C-alpha cells in the first residue's frame, strides 16, 4: 500500500491523484516513465521509485550502509553473541560502575544517566569521552567521542584534568592516538531544550523525542557504538502528597532508552542506581569524584580510633587508588 511508504505528503497526494495504489504499480514503470506520468522531474521520480522498490526510508539507508540490504538486517542470536564476545569494552575507570553494567558501558545501546544538578553527569560524560580513546594496544576501544553539549556545561579545563587522570591511570603511557572511528556519542543534556517551550504541545515534544531516540538507537545498533544521554530530574507528586525525584521528560521518554541510570547525591555521597535495563541487574553502587575524575569509592580510612586523629586525612588520593585498579 502506498500510504505506508515513507513519502512526503505532497508525493502521496500526487500518486493518489494519478490512481497509483500499490507499490508494484510504481516500480513496474521505469523512473523516466514515472517522471512523465506524474509530471515531475527525474530526480524526484527516481526517489519515489526507489522508495517503492525497497520499501524503507532511502534517507536512512544512505546513512548507514550496514543495513542497506534486507539480509544484513537479520542475524542469528549466536552471531550476536559472538560479536559481543569480540567487542572491546568501554570502561569508565569507575570499576563498580563498569561491573554494574556487566562489562563496561553498554555498546550498541542507548544509556541514559539522570540526576540532580551536581550529581556528576557531566564529569562522567567527560571521563568516558576520554577513556574511549585509550588505544587498542592497551586493550582499549581506541575510538573517538562526539560530545554534544546543549547547556554549555563542558569545561575544557576540567576535561584536561580528567584526561590527565586517565593518563595517570595508564601509568603515563605515551600519547593517546586513536583510529578515525567514532565509538561514543554523548548528549549532554537532552532535557535542557525540551523542558520549556512545549507546554501546549506535549504530543509534539514526545514525537520529537521519540524520533531522536530512534535515530540514536539506529546509530548505536548499526555502527556498534555506545550512546550516552544525560537527563535532568523532576519532582513527582504522589497521591499522598509526598514528592520523589523522577527522570524528566515523562513516561514516553522513559521507554526510549535501553538503559537508565539514576545518579543521586545525598549527604555528600554519590550513588548510581540502575532504573531500567534489559541486560543488567538492578543494582546500586557508590562512587566518588576526585581531581582525577569519577572513581570507585576509596577504601575506608585505616582505623585511627584510638589515636584521636580525626583531623588527619587517611583517605587515599585518587592517583594511588587508581593504581589499585586493574590495568585495562
Amino acid at each position, binding site marked *: 500500500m502506498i500510504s505506508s511508504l515513507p513519502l512526503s505528503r505532497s508525493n502521496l497526494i500526487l500518486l493518489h491523484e494519478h490512481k497509483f495504489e500499490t507499490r508494484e504499480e510504481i516500480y513496474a514503470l521505469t523512473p523516466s516513465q514515472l517522471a512523465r506520468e506524474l509530471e515531475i522531474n527525474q530526480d524526484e521520480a527516481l526517489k519515489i521509485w526507489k522508495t517503492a522498490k525497497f520499501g524503507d526510508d532511502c534517507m536512512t539507508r544512505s546513512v548507514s550502509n550496514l543495513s542497506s540490504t534486507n539480509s544484513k538486517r537479520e542475524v542469528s542470536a549466536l552471531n550476536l553473541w559472538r560479536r559481543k564476545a569480540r567487542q572491546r569494552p568501554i570502561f569508565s575507570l569507575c570499576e563498580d560502575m563498569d561491573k554494574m553494567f556487566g562489562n563496561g558501558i553498554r555498546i550498541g545501546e542507548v544509556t541514559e544517566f539522570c540526576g540532580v544538578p551536581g550529581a556528576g553527569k557531566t564529569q562522567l560524560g567527560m571521563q568516558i569521552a576520554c577513556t574511549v580513546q585509550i588505544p587498542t594496544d592497551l586493550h582499549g576501544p581506541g575510538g573517538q567521542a562526539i560530545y554534544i553539549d546543549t547547556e554549555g556545561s563542558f569545561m575544557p579545563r576540567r576535561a584536561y584534568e580528567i584526561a590527565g587522570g586517565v593518563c595517570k591511570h595508564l601509568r603515563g603511557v605515551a600519547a593517546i592516538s586513536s583510529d578515525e572511528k567514532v565509538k561514543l556519542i554523548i548528549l549532554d543534556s537532552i532535557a535542557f531544550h525540551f523542558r520549556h517551550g512545549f507546554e501546549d504541545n506535549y504530543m509534539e515534544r*514526545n514525537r520529537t523525542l*521519540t524520533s531522536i531516540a530512534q535515530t540514536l538507537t539506529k546509530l548505536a545498533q548499526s555502527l556498534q557504538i555506545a550512546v550516552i544521554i544525560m537527563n535532568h530530574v523532576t519532582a513527582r507528586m504522589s497521591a499522598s502528597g509526598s514528592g520523589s525525584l523522577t527522570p524528566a521528560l515523562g513516561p514516553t521518554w522513559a521507554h526510549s532508552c535501553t538503559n537508565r541510570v539514576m545518579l543521586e547525591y545525598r549527604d555528600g555521597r554519590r550513588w548510581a542506581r540502575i532504573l531500567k535495563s534489559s541486560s543488567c541487574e538492578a543494582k546500586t553502587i557508590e562512587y566518588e569524584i576526585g581531581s582525577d575524575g569519577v572513581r570507585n569509592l576509596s577504601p575506608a580510612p585505616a582505623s585511627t580510633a584510638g589515636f584521636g586523629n580525626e583531623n588527619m586525612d587517611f583517605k587515599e588520593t585518587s592517583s594511588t587508588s587508581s593504581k589499585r585498579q586493574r590495568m585495562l
Partner: protein
Amino acid sequence: MDSLPGQCKSTVQRTWKSTRLHLDSKLKDDNKENGGGVMNIPFRVKKRKAQDFGRTITLLSSVDEEKNAEVLSNAEVLDKDIGAFHENVLSVLFPRLDELMGGGIFSGEVLELVGESAVGKTQMCLMIAARLVAYTNSYVAYIDTSSSFAPNRVQQIYQDAAQHVLRVQTSQSPQNWAGDGLDPKPKDFKIAFRQIRVFKVSNAFELNTVLEEIRKGLSQDKKYDNLQMIIIDSLSAVLSPHLGGNEYQGFALMSETSRAIKHIVHKHNIAAITTSHTVSNRVDGLKPALGWNERIVLEVFILILLCSR
C-alpha cells in the same frame, strides 16, 4: 461456504479479552519459586479436533431442524478445513500466568504485552523466546526496535530455563510428556541460539519491510519453514512517533503493520507477541500508547502488566 452463525465465535474457548495482571517487579525470583516441580510441562501440542467444534455448533442449532441441517453441512465442510489445523500451546510461564491466558501462548494468535517502563515486558519476551528454542526445534523471529536483545542476558535466561527442564524431568516419568517430537534433553545454548533470528529495525518503515520479507519467505521461498513465533519488541516505539498531530501516515502505517502481522499469524499458524508501552495523563489514567483503535484491527489477546513499587 456460508459464514458461520454469530453464536459460534463465543463458544470457542479463545476469545478476545484483556486481563489485568499484577506482577511483582522481581519476575525472575517469582519464577524460580514457582519453577521447579510446580511448573507444568513446558510444551504441549494440543490438536483441537474438528469434531469438538462441530459438536458445539450442533448443540446450538438443535432448535430449528432446517437450520440444523444447514449448519451441520457447514460444519462438515469446516471439519475438513480445520481438521488439519492444530493449535500449539506453549506454556512457558509460571502456572498463574498460564492459567490467565487459558493455557499458555497459542499459535495463530497475537499476544500483546502492555505495561509501564521497566515492568518486565522485554524480560518476558526474552524468556519466552529462550524457552521455545530450549524445548523445540522451532525458530523464533525476534524483531528488536530498541536494542533490547542482549545476548548475554538471553544466555543467562536460557541456561536457567534449561535447568528447570532437568528438574522437571527427574521428577516426572517420560510418559508424561504430552508432546510429539519433543526433545527432552536441553541443548547447548549455542545450538539453541541459532534458532533465534534477530532483526534490528529502528522505524516503522523498516518494520513493515521486515514483516513483508518474512511473509514472502514463508509463503514463497519456504525460507522460514520452522518459524513458530514472532516477537516484536517494541511495537509502540516505532509506531507512536507517527500518530497524532501533523503526522499524516500514522493510521496507514499502523494498519499496514497490523495487517502484515495478522496475515503471517493466521495463514501460517504462528504465534506473535508484541509489546507496547503506556502513557498516562490525569484524565484517562494509564492507557496503551497506541490507543485502543488498534485492538479492533488486530484481535489480540492483551496482557497488561502492572508494577507495584
